[in-house]
């Protein structure tokens, strides 16, 4: 490996941010500031596509591994990707440019600082997905709090301070236990290198506590019921681009963490705690779906639907079957695209009417037809209509769940129905019906940049709905070997 492609992916956005930092921001050059950021993130996207092309799908070994001594005799800076992580990197680099385009309408002041925060955020997110050392992972995982806190707090809505604090403190509280666990792992095994830990295994008697410590962090981040309450607040108050980053990528860090660390490192404990995850996931699916049904604020509704969707993800991961985990990853990717798109859709009407309440709207189908069509695509994908990417994930997860536990699968399937109910009802109330609010008549249809963003999200949503092969091919081998290793470890009680 000559060219450090992963480190470049991690560093490039930061370099862009540094460049922006030294460019004096004023009203006239907002334009160019935005293009610098967009250019940086697009280059990063192309680089990640290149990575995907080079990626060897036939092996579950970590690829493009870079290793450098960081703290002597203690931590190595080690990054690498396998089938599981590469898709998340692609998702991150794909969503970030869209976020940057979307600031056109929503961010009025301190644009260059906002873009810096987004780019720094991208650095940390990519870092999370490719770090192969627990400490490095923790570093990226936690560091993401700083830019997100600022994004919510500075550019957010009316209750932004409360939401930003809640987001920060909830996540920090969850994560500190993970730090204890990571250091303990170092003292138990003598390394924090994930690859070595996969081989060494961790003594059974420690696994339960360590698993719980990791769980506390991931559960908050996922978020699972009952620690999900920060998410609706954060989503509602964050600016559109912030909500998109939060829903599309930040939540996926936890799902990724479950697969990479909880299952990979603590198989025995994962086996023991699977019922706990099932119960919490089912509560998340059913309970938060009902809550979503009752929401009057569009962003809040989508936020609760995110919790429900992530419930499917955790359920699928802990079936520990090929379809289950594949389904979970595809569900995460699809949710990343769809939730991002839905938040952007809400952002579009919010920019025009400055209201997120469902009551404000109704009957706008004839006024903004293009918007209505695209919004419909994402609504249908969110409820898992066949032919959209949402379907593939949910279907695979339910299939695996039926194999594992019939009752769990039945209850989860009920969640799909409620999910369809709230999404369709949302769509009906916003788009169809009588046009009562006459202000709505002045609404303009999608402008060019919004069109670009939403179309570029529609394409993969539909494409992977009909043809999920590229995704499945990428992850298949890695997951197969992960499960194999898991079963071997369970059998030999390591």
């Amino acid at each position: 490996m000559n060219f450090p492609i992963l480190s470049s992916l991690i560093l490039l956005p930061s370099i862009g941010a540094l460049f922006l930092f030294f460019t004096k921001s004023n009203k006239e050059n907002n334009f160019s500031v935005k293009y610098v950021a967009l250019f940086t993130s697009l280059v990063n996207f192309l680089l990640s596509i290149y990575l995907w092309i080079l990626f060897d799908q036939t092996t579950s070994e970590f690829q493009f591994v870079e290793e450098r001594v960081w703290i002597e005799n203690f931590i190595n800076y080690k990054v690498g990707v396998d089938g599981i992580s590469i898709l998340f990197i692609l998702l991150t680099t794909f969503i970030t440019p869209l976020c940057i385009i979307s600031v056109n309408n929503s961010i009025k002041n301190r644009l260059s600082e906002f873009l810096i925060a987004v780019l720094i955020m991208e650095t940390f997110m990519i870092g999370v997905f490719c770090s192969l050392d627990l400490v490095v992972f923790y570093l990226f995982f936690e560091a993401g709090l700083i830019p997100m806190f600022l994004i919510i707090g500075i550019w957010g809505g009316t209750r932004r301070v409360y939401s930003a604090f809640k987001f920060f403190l909830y996540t920090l509280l969850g994560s500190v236990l993970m730090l204890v666990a990571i250091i303990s792992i170092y003292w138990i095994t003598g390394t924090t290198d994930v690859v070595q830990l996969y081989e060494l295994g961790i003594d059974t008697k420690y696994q339960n506590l360590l698993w719980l410590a990791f769980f506390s962090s991931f559960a908050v981040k996922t978020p699972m019921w009952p620690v999900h309450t920060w998410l609706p607040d954060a989503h509602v108050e964050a600016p559109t681009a912030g909500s998109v980053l939060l829903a599309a990528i930040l939540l996926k860090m936890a799902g990724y963490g479950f697969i990479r660390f909880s299952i990979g490192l603590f198989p025995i404990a994962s086996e023991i705690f699977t019922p706990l995850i099932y119960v919490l996931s089912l509560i998340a699916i059913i309970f938060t779906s009902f809550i979503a049904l009752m929401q009057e604020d569009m962003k809040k509704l989508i936020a609760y639907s995110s919790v429900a969707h992530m419930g499917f993800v955790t359920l699928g991961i802990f079936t520990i079957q090929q379809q289950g985990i594949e389904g979970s990853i595809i569900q995460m990717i699809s949710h990343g695209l769809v939730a991002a798109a839905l938040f952007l859709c809400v952002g579009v009407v919010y920019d025009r009417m400055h209201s997120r309440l469902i009551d404000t709207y109704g009957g706008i189908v004839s006024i903004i037809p293009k918007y209505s069509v695209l919004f419909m695509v994402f609504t249908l994908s969110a409820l898992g209509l066949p032919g959209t990417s949402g379907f593939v994930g949910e279907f695979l997860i339910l299939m695996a769940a039926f194999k594992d536990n019939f009752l769990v699968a039945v209850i989860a399937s009920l969640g799909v129905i409620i999910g369809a109910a709230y999404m369709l009802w949302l769509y009906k109330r916003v788009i169809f019906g009588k046009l009562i609010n006459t202000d709505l008549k002045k609404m303009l249809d999608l402008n060019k940049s919004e069109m670009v963003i939403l179309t570029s999200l529609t394409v993969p949503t539909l494409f992977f709905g009909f043809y999920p092969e590229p995704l499945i091919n990428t992850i298949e081998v890695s997951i197969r070997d992960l499960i194999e290793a898991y079963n071997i470890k369970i059998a030999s009680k390591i």
Partner: protein
Amino acid sequence: MQNLELVFPEIFISLGIMFLLILGVFKKNSSKLIHNISLVFLLITAVITFNETLSLNKIKLFNNSIIIDYLSSFMKIVTLVAAFLVLTISSNYLKSLKIFKIEYPILILSSVLGMMIMISSNDLIVFYMGLELQSLSLYVLATFNRDQIKSSEAGLKYFVLSALSSGLLLYGCSLIYGFTGSTNFDVISNQLSSNEYALTFGIVFILVGLAFKISAVPFHMWAPDVYEGSPTSVTLFFTMVPKIAALTVFIRFLYVPFLNLIDQWQMILIFLSIASMLFGAVAAIGQKNLKRLVAYSSIGHVGYALAGLATGSNEGIQSSIIYITIYIIMNLGLFSCLLMMRRNDVYYEEIEDLSGLSKNHPLLSLSLLIILFSLAGIPPLAGFFAKFYIFKSVLEQSMFFLAIVGLLSTVVAAFYYLRLIKIMYFDKEHEKFDTDHGIWLKFSLIASTILILLYFVFPSQLIDIVSKINII
């Protein structure tokens, strides 16, 4: 008399103090000159210490009452550099309060001398002598703005409480002398038999005295009032420099003569540590004055440093020293920001005055943001690594309770740091502050911010330096 050159730094600085005193008496309006000369003295002393003693292995002088080793040399250099920086950035502040007098640098020099003696002490009497020299200078420094009632109150309060704690400490020393027949650390360590429970009283009294000096809970009562009342530059000195010396004495005292009694003092240290971490985090939440807030935050930070000491291992000591070094850098940045909050020669120190700072002074508030996140221990900033090493060494000894309480209190503490950031970034702006700051003030802010921000690039450097400290 052998090896006088090894105590040359101390001799140099005491001669310097005398010279400056005489100069101050005979030359009118010499405060600027004396200020500059004392800066040079501090720097020269640091260089001498670096050249003469840093490479030495443990050497004991004067009937084993003074010890020169890597720990003492390193800590002396840190003390000197910190004092140097405090002195450089305080001149403009003192001028605008009209207390730019010759006594200020001389008092700082003499307290530094006291600290250097403390750091090198290998004997209870020598240690006490150093302690009193530094404390007496600090009392005067606290009241330095004597026309202000708050400053006088601070000094008086500090004096009374500190004298009480010194009394306790002396009583502890006398107990130890009574049971071991010596004040020398090495002799004590040989004479020690762990069945002498009364000896534990001696240790407890000395620990109380030391805990008072570094303001660990429950002996912290003086800190908020004194920090608030003293002139800001003196507060900066209080938060940074005496803590280094006190921490060194803590290490020396616990790990040389009383290492065998670790069972006796470990519990005390764990208690002090937990109480300080929790109290520092909780009590800071309600504060309105920035200097009071810093006082509580420093109480919390002392708790973390003590957690490292409580482990009873070399790694623990090293992590404490790393912690205090990084803490000093962060504090320097924090106070540089405080000293920049000036409008028409009036310094503002309420938290509300920070409001909307980010709109008026984007760079200043960005630095403060970085420093505050670092104080809160959020990666990838230096403060995180400081805590990380502490918890690494704490967990090595399987002290899970201490680690978990410590980490949970970082979450509580994060709340009040976030509150400051919220006020800076999310609230409405006030009038602008003045921007014509001294070059040193700007330098120390920029340097500390960059060090904090980029610490993660070369985290090994500091560890390499500190890992040469082997006490046990």
